[in-house]
C-alpha cells in the first residue's frame, strides 16, 4: 500500500459551497499551502459520476427532484 494522503477538491467548492451557507471554503486551496508542499500529499479534482451509479443508492424520482430543485 502506498503511504500517501489524498485531498479531493474542486474549485467550485470555494465559490458556492454547501449550497446556502455560501463561501465557507473561500480560503481553499490556499489554506492548504504548507500541506501541498509535502511530497506524499496529493490533490485530485473529482469528476462527476454516472447516473447509473447514483441509481444504486437513490430512486429516479430523487434524481429528478434534485435536478428540479432551485437549491
Amino acid at each position, binding site marked *: 500500500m502506498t503511504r500517501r*494522503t489524498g485531498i*479531493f477538491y474542486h474549485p467550485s467548492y470555494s465559490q458556492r*459551497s454547501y449550497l*446556502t451557507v455560501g463561501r465557507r471554503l473561500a480560503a481553499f486551496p490556499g489554506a492548504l499551502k504548507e500541506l501541498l508542499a509535502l511530497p506524499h500529499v496529493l490533490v485530485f479534482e*473529482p469528476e462527476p459520476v454516472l447516473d447509473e451509479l447514483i441509481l444504486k*443508492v437513490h430512486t429516479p*424520482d*430523487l434524481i429528478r*427532484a*434534485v435536478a428540479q430543485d432551485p437549491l
Partner: protein
Amino acid sequence: MVAAAERIWLGELLNAFAFIGAGGHHAGRDFFGGYCCFNDVAIAIERLREVHGLRRVAILDTDAHHGDGTRDIYRDDPTVLHICLCGSDYVSADGTKVDVAVYRRCFEAGARSDEVYLEAAEAACAKRVPDFRPDLLVWYFGFDGHRGDYGDLGLTATCYNGIVRLVLDLAGQVCGGRLLVVLGGGSRADLASSLIPPIIACLADAAG
C-alpha cells in the same frame, strides 16, 4: 468521494480528505434536504462493493445533526456499521446502527464539552469498530457543532483533533489504515480555515 474511496481501496492512497460542494448524509434513498442532494458516502460504498468487492464499512458521523439519509439507506444492511453522535440513544438489534445522545451531555458539560463529546465518540467506537472488522473506515466530519456555528455544541478544535486521532488509530487497528474523511456541515469560513488543515496534517503524518 467515489474517486477518493477507490484510490484508497486500490492502495494508491492510505487515507484521504474529501471536500464537498453539497452535503450527503441527509440524502436518503428517496428524500433529500438539509443542504444535501446525493448521499456521497453511500454512492462511494456502492461503487466499492460492486467493482472492488468491499464487504464491510464503518461510518462514524460526528456532524452535529443526525445522519438520517445514511441511516435510511443502510437501515437493514448489516454490512454497514453506522455510528452517529446526535440527539438520541439507539442501538439496532444487530448492533450495526448506533445513535449516541450527545446534545444534553454537551450542554450540561459547558466548558468541558470537548472532553465529553470525545469520550462519547471513543466509547461508541472502542469495541464496536474492531469487532465489526470493517474493510474501510469513514469519518463524516462536520464542524457545525463548533462554538458559534449553526449546530453549536460548544466544541472546539480540541475535540476534532481528538477525533481524527481516534479514527486514525481505529483505522490502523482494523483496516490497514484505510480512512476516508468526508467534510459535512459547518458554515463559517474562519472555522473551515482553522480546523481542516490540522486534520489533513494528521492524515499526512499517519501516511508519512
